[in-house]
Structures are given as C-alpha cells and as structure tokens.
C-alpha cells in the first residue's frame, strides 16, 4: 500500500515536471515541424473593431521616452514580417494567467480570472471565453515560443478579474493598465495670470495632491502614464519643471512652481475625462495655498545634534578592519569641530564613546537639546562590492508634511481641518527642510567626488520621534574597497567631515 502511494507521488511529480518541460518545448517542436506562413493580409476581427490601427508605422520618428523608475509592467512587441507580435509567455505574465498546453490539439489555453483564451498554432482564430475572434494574422511560432498578434490586446475582456492591457504602438510594448486606466500627454497653456496643465485621464476624480510645496509639488494618478511630456515649457508660465517620479501603481509627477504663484486649483472633469491643474498668480477664494517653505534667506542654526550610528554591542557594518560604530564616532567628532568653526552653533553628540543607545534615547536627546538640525551618521554595507557611494534618508514629503512648514507651525487656515499625526512621525513636519538638507549634503559629496549619491524619502528609525529637520546619512559604503580605503585614512575622514559641513552650510545659507 505504502509502495503504491510512493509510486503515485513519483508519477505525479514526474507528470508535473514533464508538463513544465512540455510547455517550454512544445512550441519549439511546433516551430520545427511547421513552416511559418508568410501571408498576413489584414483581416477583420470578429465581433469587435478593427485592430489594424495599432500596426507599427514604419519610419515614424520615435517620441522622447519618459524616464521614470521602473515603469508599468510591460512586455516588448516585436514585428514579424512587419506585423507586431507579442510573445505568449509575456502575454500570460501580463494577464497573470496560467498556461495549459494541449499537445494533441496544438492549442495553448490561458486562464486568468474567470476567462480563458485559446490559441491554436498557425491559426488566426482565437477563442476568448465563448466568442471567436478572427485576428488579422495567425498565431505563429518563433524561437520555440508562440507569438500572438498584438492586435488581440484591445479585444480582450475588460473586467476586474483580468488585467487590462494597452498596446503602446509608439514604444512597441504592451503594458498593464490599472483599473483606473491611463493618463495621456499633458498640454500646457499660459494665459495671463493663469497657467494650465491639462492631463487627459480616465479617472480624474482619483487624482491626489501628494505634496504642496512649490519646489516639490506632486500629484499622483491612479492610472498609468501612456503619453509624453512637453519638450519645453513656456517662459512666461508659472511652471518651471515637470518630471515623472516613480510610483508603484499609477503614475506621479513632480512640478517645480514659480515663487510668483499664489495658489493652485485642481479641476477634475469626469465627463470630459481630464484633469486641469491651474496655477494662479493671484490668490482667489477658491484657490488652495501652497505649503509654506519657510522664509528665504539664511536659516537659523543654533543647535546641531550629531548622532553617531550604532555603538556598544552593535558594531554596525564590519568590512575588513573598518568597523562602522568606530568610524561614525570619529567622524562625528571631526564634524563637530567643523560645524563649530563654520556655523558657530552648539553641537551635541548623542554619544561620545562606545556604548549602546536605543533609538528612543537618541530622539529624546535631540528633542531635549531643541535641535534645529539632526544628522544621524552611518556607513553602508552591501553584499555586492560594486555597491558604493552615499545615501541619504529623509522623511517623506507626504500630504501630511506639506501641511506644515519647517521649523514648526503649520500654515493651516482657519477653515482647514486639524491634522493628527502620530508622535513617532513628527519629523515629517520638517520634511521639506529635511529634503533640502539631504540635497545640499549629497550635492556637496558629489562635487567632492564622494558619490554616487542616492536620496530616499523614507522615515528611518533614528528620526522616529525627532522634532527637527534631519537626515540619516550613509556617508560611504564600507564594502566597496575604494570607499573603505578612503575613509580609513585620517585625511579621508577629515575630508568627509569638511564636505558634510559644506553641505550643511549651503543648507543654512538657503540661497
């Protein structure tokens, strides 16, 4: 009996293994057995509309691509005899569908959500649920993999159980659209005292203003951006720059807005499927104010708290003879001298020797000292020795942060609701100033050749409960031989301290 069960399990495992091999190789066998038909005369798709509008026009100039994080989930579209095709494995991945191969009928079935799509090799008919679609070109095999005409993408079912795809002919790719659809190319107009930025969007009602500061005004769409940004901005307008920023779902944009702008208005037109961001030179009753960013000119710095990372039983990163807790302490002492000399500010170290300190104790020391600025000093480490350079972490400039200004009190008007914030996240009140500090310090490091640098907007542990502008700075990467060698030399560490002090000075000048 037991032997029989084992035999059954082995047979089952073998079936599964064989199936995987078959799915991978069946298309190859088909490709070897059959010749790819050459004819691809356009045909009508039944019962839906003509999909030939998406054929890739030859010789058309490619638009400027938009650099943005990783972008949406996408698959490449490659032409076969001039007809755009997408690989079936990519299509299954985008649809989050499971593949079933029927070798006897030479059919591949994709099942995703409540739907099934059946392809037959060298056949233009595709069965989608109960409907039969007649594609303009047949399903083909190439390099051992089924290739599906990209025209199919627009004929797939559109409901919540199956991913919604979009064939982006200009970029030769198929992307997954969220349920909220897409966001098209924005148009920018400037008329008198108003500058309008108009985005075509499937769901303009879902747009959120993430940050309201003029320097980092951010809006987020639930839909994916499928358009292109304008090549240039009008000189007389109130928009200084517009760039996409990474967003896991949907798309987000960051604008830099001129200081002359007094307010903004967000006009969400669901019927016309567009969102208009109006930037106004003069304040009106219905205009929303920007988040105050503090007065221009020098920032007052009376107390600087330097927090050497780790300590005591926590050595931090160890690479060769370099120990993070020792380097951070040494750097903090050097930096104290630099800051006292350059800024004439009082400098407080959270630890002056090698001992354990909790994050709460560090935050309490900073708050008791009434710090204007907190710098948590660290050195990085990573498994791959190619990783090098410096990274700064600052509190995220979220909507909550944008409601207040650096240095303390918020800019809420009398009609605006009270904003409750957990104390652990109190440092997001200073997000704008913290980001400016991070950019100033990283810029100084780059100028001195101590990069590459990275900036991450994420609230780190050492800033939890800290009521001041601050950053966590990974000054160098100890696992990178060049970085390690540099900071292990006294001159290298002194140079690093001077560079960070330069960055703080630049932030203090606030030019």
């Amino acid at each position, binding site marked *: 009996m037991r032997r029989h069960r084992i035999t059954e399990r082995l*047979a089952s495992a*073998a079936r599964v293994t064989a199936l*995987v091999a078959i799915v991978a190789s069946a298309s190859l066998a088909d490709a070897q057995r059959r010749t790819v038909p050459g004819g691809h005369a356009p045909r009508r798709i039944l019962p839906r509309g003509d999909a030939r509008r998406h054929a890739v026009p030859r010789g058309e100039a490619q638009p400027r691509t938009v650099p943005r994080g990783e972008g949406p989930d996408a698959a490449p579209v490659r032409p076969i005899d001039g007809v755009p095709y997408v690989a079936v494995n990519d299509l299954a991945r985008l649809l989050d569908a499971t593949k079933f191969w029927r070798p006897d009928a030479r059919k591949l079935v994709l099942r995703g959500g409540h739907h099934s799509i059946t392809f037959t090799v060298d056949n233009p008919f595709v069965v989608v649920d109960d409907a039969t679609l007649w594609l303009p070109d047949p399903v083909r095999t190439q390099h051992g993999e089924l290739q599906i005409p990209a025209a199919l993408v627009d004929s797939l079912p559109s409901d919540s159980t199956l991913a919604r795809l979009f064939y982006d002919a200009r970029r030769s790719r198929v992307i997954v659209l969220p349920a909220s659809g897409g966001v098209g190319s924005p148009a920018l107009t400037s008329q008198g005292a108003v500058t309008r930025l108009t985005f075509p969007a499937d769901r303009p009602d879902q747009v959120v203003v993430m940050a309201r500061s003029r320097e980092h005004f951010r809006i987020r769409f639930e839909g994916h951006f499928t358009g292109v940004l304008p090549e240039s901005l009008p000189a007389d307008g109130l928009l200084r720059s517009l760039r996409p920023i990474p967003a896991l779902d949907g798309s987000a944009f960051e604008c830099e807005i001129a200081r002359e702008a007094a307010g903004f208005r967000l006009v969400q037109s669901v019927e016309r499927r567009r969102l208009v961001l109006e930037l106004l030179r003069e304040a009106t009753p219905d205009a929303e104010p920007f988040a105050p960013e503090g007065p221009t000119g020098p920032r007052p710095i009376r107390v600087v708290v330097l927090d050497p990372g780790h300590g005591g039983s926590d050595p931090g*990163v160890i690479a060769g003879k370099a120990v993070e807790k020792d380097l951070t302490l040494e750097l903090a002492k050097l930096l104290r001298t630099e800051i006292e000399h350059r800024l004439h500010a009082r400098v407080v170290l959270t630890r002056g020797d090698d001992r354990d300190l909790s994050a709460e104790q560090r935050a309490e020391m900073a708050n008791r000292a009434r710090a204007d600025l907190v710098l948590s000093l660290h050195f990085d480490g990573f498994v791959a020795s190619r*990783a090098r350079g410096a990274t700064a972490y600052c509190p995220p400039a979220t909507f909550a942060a944008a409601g207040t200004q650096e240095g303390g009190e918020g800019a809420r008007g009398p009609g605006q609701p009270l904003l409750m914030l957990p104390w652990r996240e109190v440092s997001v009140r200073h997000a704008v100033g913290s980001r400016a500090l991070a950019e100033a310090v990283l810029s100084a490091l780059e100028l001195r050749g101590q990069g590459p640098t990275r900036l991450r907007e994420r609230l780190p542990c050492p800033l939890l409960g800290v009521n001041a502008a601050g950053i*966590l700075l990974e000054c160098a990467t100890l696992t990178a031989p060049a970085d390690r060698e540099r900071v292990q030399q006294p001159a290298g560490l002194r140079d690093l301290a001077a560079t960070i002090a330069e960055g703080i000075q630049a932030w203090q000048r606030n030019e």
Partner: protein
Amino acid sequence: MRRPLVLIAVAVLVIGSLAWFVRHWVRRTHVSPPLVAADSSAVGVRAARLYFASPSGDSLVVESREMIEAASLHDRVARLLAELDRGPRGAGTAALPAGTAALHVFLDDRGLLTLDVSRAFQRGFRGGSNAEYLAVASLVRTLAANLPEVKRVLIVCGGQPLPTLGGHLPLDQPLDVNEWP
C-alpha cells in the same frame, strides 16, 4: 490422433499468451500511469515576477520566472520566498538574507498580509541601510506584484514582532505596497 493434441497445445499457448498479456497490460496501467495526460488542464504554470537587488545596489531588478501554480495562499507565498532565496538567474543579487522562508501567512479582508518569516531573515542579515532597504523592498514588491489582493504587508519573524531588520528602517507597522516604488 496427434492432430487434436497439437490443436489443444496451440489453443493453450494462445490463451496463455493472451492471459499474460492482459495481466501485464492491466498491471502496467495501474502501476505506471502515463507521464503526460492528453489534456494537461489539471496543472498549469504561471509567470512570477521576482525582485532582486541590482548588482550596484542602487535599485531592484525584476526577473520573470515560470512556476507551477499553487492552490493555497500559503503555498504561493512560500514558493515566492523560496525563489527569492534561490537568487537571480540573470544579473542581480539576492536581496533577502539567505535561508529566509515563509512560516505562516494570513491575509485579512482589507488586504493586510501578515507574513511570518523564519529566523534566518533576521539572523542572516548583514549590511547597512541599503541592504536593509533592498531586502524589505524585494519582499514587499514581489508579494505585491504576484498577489494583487495584498495592499499592505506586516512582517513578523519567528512568530515575534520585528521592530527593525538592521536598525535603520522601522518594520513595526504594516508597509503600504504603494510606498515601495
């Protein structure tokens, strides 16, 4: 006289051969079923998106990998973590501490996934904030990419709350998958 004997012998031989063949055929069908069913609809394969650290440690790189479809949520998460632990096949570096595995998984009706990972997640961690960021981002993004129903992830370790992995990033509260781009 000899002719009936020959006929009987031939008949016995034919019947015996037939009986042996039938018995052998029946046993074979019982003991070793065909490796591949004519219709393989019972088992499917699905592409999973796995996030690893880039070689320079700046960001994440995504790798698509075919996996046998799992029925339960626990099995799906466990297989995803096993693949992350196995490391990338292309360019990239495993971001999760070696030996990290899923112990328990619970998904509530608001999309909060509580993921209990093995102690290796904490004990095997080496590095600074970058390694910490990439380890958490690799985990959160892989779960979000393959389990659309997951909106937030709470990581616990060995059944205990995990305040932080390496002292740089807080993990004591659920992580919104939208905040790990």
